[in-house]
């Protein structure tokens, strides 16, 4: 019989992708503009802060391990859920619009400059429509498969850029004030609550080895922190701090520099597929959140699931063309989610006591 649970590795890869979405949504320049080369320490310190945060909200997972996040919220605040749910729904919907807009901008700027981004997004949304109708196991299996691809592209980047790197470019380290390093670490940390929120939806009981959930999360956190550190280290050593600060997307400029033995060049289009993956999975999980939320709250729409999904996709696709977002939208949404998760965790603690 086919297993209907999520394996430890699939859970790991899902969390890894949700953590890596920091690269396209916030980006390295946001740290280097604050702390220059010392942004490297900002990443290390920020990873530690995220680790502490994950320990703080650990009890959300263990609270009613067979319930989804929304069921837990309803259980904790039965009266307030009528206010909270529409608010959370709207926030996630706006985040979806923001990500879709950001992804179409990326595709238009770097991959298909001569085609209007709207047309590039149509096949992607068709894939999403097909993909989101699949059971959750299929989604997790896809993250597992894509993880190998992402790892391959990362190794390609690593070995391609090493000959172009000059580690002296990273000097002088620790030249910025401790407050700048701390500030960059906070900027880094404050972009992560959404990743935790998206992962928390899945009940602990869905996991094959429930007891190893926290350990798996820590491993993903460690690997993600290490990958981001290596990315920034290689960007700084190949571009230098001045050029890193000049470009909004220094990683894409670094991709352009990659050359294998002066024979294989111009691999940036291939490597930027890792970027597409980092946009794709947050979209998948946000849509999954919203559709599951609607199904939980309105059981009568179960039969019209496809229509609801289609309308939601259509709304996001068209809506992303018209909405304009403030540059602070993503960070402010994350801060809201951060407080919400801390509040939720505290409520569980008090309830248990």
């Amino acid at each position, binding site marked *: 019989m086919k297993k209907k649970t999520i394996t430890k590795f699939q859970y790991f890869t899902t969390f890894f992708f949700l953590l890596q979405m920091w690269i396209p949504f916030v980006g390295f320049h946001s740290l280097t503009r604050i702390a220059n080369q010392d942004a490297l320490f900002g990443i290390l310190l920020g990873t530690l802060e995220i680790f502490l945060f994950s320990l703080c909200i650990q009890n959300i997972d263990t609270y009613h391990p067979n319930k989804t996040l929304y069921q837990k919220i309803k259980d904790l605040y039965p009266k307030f859920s009528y206010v909270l749910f529409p608010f959370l729904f709207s926030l996630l919907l706006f985040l979806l619009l923001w990500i879709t807009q950001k992804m179409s901008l990326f595709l238009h700027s770097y991959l*298909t400059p001569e085609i209007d981004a709207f047309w590039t997004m149509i096949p992607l949304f068709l894939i999403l429509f097909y993909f989101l109708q699949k059971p959750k196991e299929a989604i997790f299996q896809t993250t597992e498969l894509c993880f190998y691809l992402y790892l391959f592209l990362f190794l390609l980047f690593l070995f391609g850029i090493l000959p172009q790197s000059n580690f*002296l470019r990273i000097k*002088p380290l620790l*030249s910025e004030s401790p407050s700048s390093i701390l500030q960059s670490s906070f900027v880094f940390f404050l972009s992560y609550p959404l990743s935790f929120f998206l992962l928390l939806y899945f009940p602990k009981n869905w996991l094959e080895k429930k007891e190893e959930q926290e350990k798996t999360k820590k491993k993903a956190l460690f690997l993600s922190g290490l990958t981001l550190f290596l990315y920034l280290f290689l960007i700084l050593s190949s*571009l230098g701090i001045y050029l890193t600060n000049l470009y909004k997307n220094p990683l894409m400029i670094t991709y*352009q520099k990659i050359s294998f033995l002066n024979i294989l060049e111009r691999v940036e289009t291939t490597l930027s597929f890792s970027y597409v993956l980092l946009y794709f999975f947050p979209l998948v999980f946000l849509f999954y959140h919203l559709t599951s939320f609607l199904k939980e709250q309105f059981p009568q729409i179960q039969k019209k699931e496809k229509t609801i999904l289609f309308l939601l996709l259509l709304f996001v696709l068209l809506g992303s063309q018209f909405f304009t977002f403030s540059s602070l939208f993503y960070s402010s949404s994350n801060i809201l989610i951060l407080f919400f998760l801390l509040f939720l965790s505290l409520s569980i603690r008090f309830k248990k006591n």
Partner: protein
Amino acid sequence: MKKFFLLAISLFFLTGCNSYTELNQLGIVSLVGIDYQEENYHVYIYLVEPQEETTALTSYNAEGSSIEEAMHQLYLKSNKKMYLAHMDALVLSKEAIDEKLKEIVTYLLNQREIRNNFELMEVDSLNKLFEEKKGAQELIELVHTNENYMGTTQSITFEKFLENLLIDTNTTIPLLSFNKELKVEGLSLIHNFQTIDTLSTEETILLNLLENNLKESIYQEITIYESKTNLEFQKENNLFHIYLEVNQNPSSFSKELEKELRRLLIYYEEQDYDLIKLKQRRKENRLESNATQIKRNFTFDIHIAVRENNLERKK
């Protein structure tokens, strides 16, 4: 059936026919020249056009009040779609550097196709250069050969040029002249997006020597076989340890060289131009921690050890 339907629809969006360009409709730009005369940009380009058996270089030029307008005029003259991704070199006139370097850099940074590894040069008469059909490779080889075998110039890529300008607003660019024939003239010194001076070929050899970039050269009729320079940063001083292997008169050459190096360093220190990027290098070595210290003038000392080449001695 549903899957087939979805796949069939997706195929219409995945073919990429929308932006398809035939190779023979593509004009691959190898060299771009920008001049600025009488408040007008003069843009010159070389297009590499594949022929039946070989490739030919076709030059076009146009002018306009902005680079965009000049490029637009070029499009009107050429029957090809200009493709800048394979651009090898950019040549600028002195006027273009002095008056419009910032605008040119901004234009280049905004071009998605362009990569930052093309080389930059300053040429005194751009129109002659393009009339004589000197290709990008010819210019690059001229600069590289002079850099590697004589030390009379220094090549620079756009990326390095940008980095230098961003670090301390100082940079250099190879200077070429084209009177009767194409010739290396040394280096043009740029400060704050303007040329402030030029270094002759002999002065460029000295600069390469100080920066430990000199492989071999001939300076004042003395052949330098080998050279090595170490820069030692002291608290209030910069100490150059220079080791040379020459063909004759090591002691008199040593004195003469030290005199010339001092003259060069003192001259540019007085001009407040950081010729060998001492401030930045001291900062990298954590010798300066704040802006006031960086602004302070430093003293320097030169220790030269010259020895005669063994083969010359045997003669």
